[in-house]
């Protein structure tokens, strides 16, 4: 990388390749971008392109037969398999359970914390809230897997022993493929994202000039009206970004289902991501061509809904 420092102060137009010419040509710019782009293209762009290509073949990883181009056959097979739709629906179900909680609760908290005038308390609140966000994902899942344990987990202990709301016989069976499994995971995700989203909304609230809500209050509006008419419209853009982003991550969940569920097709955690993974790395000869098609179908379905969401919720200015 040319690091020549043009020595002449007056020499603004240096001719040597270095210093200013380097910057002017723009090659320096691309050079600095190169490492990031190399990784991005190599491990994100290229794999997607290849997966797309794979989805049109009958490639099986564990087989030595050469793979054949089969056109849309994988897609036809996948779309015709009820499991594909079932698994997509399960992911959608989870998303519907998760999204409202992960928007409304943080919003509430943000509004509350925003009004706290004691700086130190506000800081303490924010730090505590963010603690789950700095715990690595897998450890969050492991923690909640223990917590939800039917026999000895603290949640059931609280419900049965401490509050007596349930007995040992009818205590909720949170995990293991029961109907409560998806809500359990949703609750965990909401807990996890609480702090992060609260901070997000706090930033948005900080951008609202203080005199606006104050003026509304002087005019006699109560807190709810202040929120609905003054604050909410201004938060709308941020809210929309969060909704769309979270929709994306919720539909594409896979680690949680691997840890909390398994490969039982009847389980509510068997979503399209697990279906894809199952076909690619678990069953039979690892039909990665077919799995690629499943993945593509899921991704495209998701993107379509996301575009719709953006259209519907686009803030009307």
């Amino acid at each position, binding site marked *: 990388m040319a690091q020549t420092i043009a020595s002449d102060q007056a020499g603004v137009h240096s001719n040597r390749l270095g210093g200013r010419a380097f910057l002017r040509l723009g090659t320096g710019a691309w050079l600095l971008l190169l490492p990031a782009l190399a990784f991005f293209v190599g491990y994100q762009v290229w794999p997607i392109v290849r997966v797309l290509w794979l989805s049109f073949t009958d490639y099986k990883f564990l087989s030595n037969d050469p793979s054949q181009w089969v056109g849309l056959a994988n897609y036809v097979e996948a779309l015709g398999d009820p499991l594909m739709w079932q698994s997509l629906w399960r992911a959608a179900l989870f998303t519907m359970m998760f999204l409202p909680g992960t928007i409304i609760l943080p919003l509430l908290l943000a509004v509350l914390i925003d009004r706290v005038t004691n700086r130190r308390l506000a800081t303490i609140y924010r730090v505590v809230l963010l603690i789950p966000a700095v715990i690595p994902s897998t450890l969050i899942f492991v923690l909640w897997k223990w917590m939800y344990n*039917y026999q*000895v987990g603290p949640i059931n202990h609280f419900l049965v022993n401490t509050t007596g709301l349930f007995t040992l016989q009818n205590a909720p069976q949170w995990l293991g493929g029961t109907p409560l499994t998806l809500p359990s995971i949703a609750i965990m995700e909401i807990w996890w994202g609480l702090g992060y989203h609260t901070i997000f909304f706090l930033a948005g609230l900080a951008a609202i000039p203080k005199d606006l809500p104050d003026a509304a209050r002087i005019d006699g509006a109560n807190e709810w009206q202040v929120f609905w008419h003054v604050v909410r419209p201004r938060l709308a853009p941020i809210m929309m970004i969060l909704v769309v982003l979270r929709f994306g991550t919720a539909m594409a969940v896979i680690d949680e289902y691997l840890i909390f569920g398994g490969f039982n097709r009847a389980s509510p955690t068997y979503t399209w991501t697990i279906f894809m993974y199952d076909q690619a790395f678990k069953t039979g000869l690892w039909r990665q061509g077919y799995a690629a098609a499943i993945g593509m179908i899921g991704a495209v379905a998701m993107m379509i809904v996301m575009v719709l969401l953006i259209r519907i919720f686009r803030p009307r200015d």
Partner: protein
Amino acid sequence: MSVRKEEEHVVQRALRRQLLQGTIDRRQFLTRSMVAGLGMAGVAAATKTGIGPAFAADDRPLTPTFYQWIENLHPGIATVNGEFPGINYQIAPVEGFGIERFVAEAKAGESTWDVYVGQTPFVEMTAMKEAGVIEPWDDYMPKEVLDDIIPSIREENTIDGKMYGWPFLLDVIGTGWHSGLTDKAGVADEAPATWDDFLAAGQKVVDSKAAPWGATFDSHGWRSVAPITHSMSTDVYTPEGLFDFTSEPAIEALKLMKTIMAMANPDILLEGATDAGVNGTPDEVAFAAQRVALYFKYFNAPLRMAANWDDPTLLHLGPLPKFPNGEGSTVFWTTGCALFKYGQNKEKAAEYIKALTYDPQIWKDSIVGTPSGHPGQLPPYKSIYADWDANKPDWMPPFVGLVRGQLDRAKAITNNLFGLQQFVIGKPIWETYLKGEESDPKVAMQKVVDAVQAEVKKG
């Protein structure tokens, strides 16, 4: 790290020899040397492209691969490995009994590993033999070892007169109970002789509120349906070697399971927490939490769970109950070793397995327990038991003699390509009866048979 260097050196030597002999040309020599430099991890990838034959000349170190839980429960393995310097010890990618990797490699005529420790005959052995993954030990197992194996175990590991499995860890299904809880309930501190006694004891525990639940079991078929069926009769296999779900004993077993469930932990049918749901099951948690008095499973389960009690010595073990006019048998299986057909170092492998299976420290640790675990699994050899009988070690607990005695009455689940699968397929179906969705056990079991047959026909 030195293992890798030695591998590379060994491989280079072989390649050079091949080049000199004219078996390979310069280009192949260079390619294969490069591949060898990637280390054994790269071999798996490279062998897919046909570099495998380069290693056919027996020039890699002994490469055994183990099912993860075996290493977890038997820390003595590391010591045995120490006696075989240069050994390339691996963990097998077989969660939930998956053998796809082995099958795929065999199809290509290759094998990354030499011997697999973790094969249970009724589970994978037939499938591995049919897929051409494994070959018999007969040419490599010393005759005195072969004769030393307990006859029923030898039969379990035999297909067409040949030993496709070298047995290692013996498990027998029996009863365990929390004598503290049974005492509190006023139940006799002994293994229930019949299933009626078992039910009565469990009911008494619940009624006296000594514990929330009276009895529990592991809901997977080979740990519940099979042993209860055997306790009535072991003549419950079809000519093809499949479990006869519609037989009288099997139906009785299913009905009994439903009766037990009325006094068992409510989550008894849920999948386990680990190993694709096969391990870490709810019955284990309940027993470890001292919330249930009676338990039947392979003995290493109550042993391991009791380690969590205030007083583990309260655990008592006994034989599985029987039906009043039943045979009184139970299920046993061994977890053993399979010889990869396309592996290498076969004589070395036999040496290694012999050392492993006869190692006294492994057996002592297994029986007495270590901080790492208390598996309670036993050896397959007559001579070891004879030795113990002759000079009884002071650490020998009574359950060993019990299990050994039970073994003579126990029968293994018949080997079949669908030996394990039939239970996996059947579980959700017979559970419709257990959950009350289907009122007639015969109907449920017939559906199980139909489903299994459908799978068998698919081939």
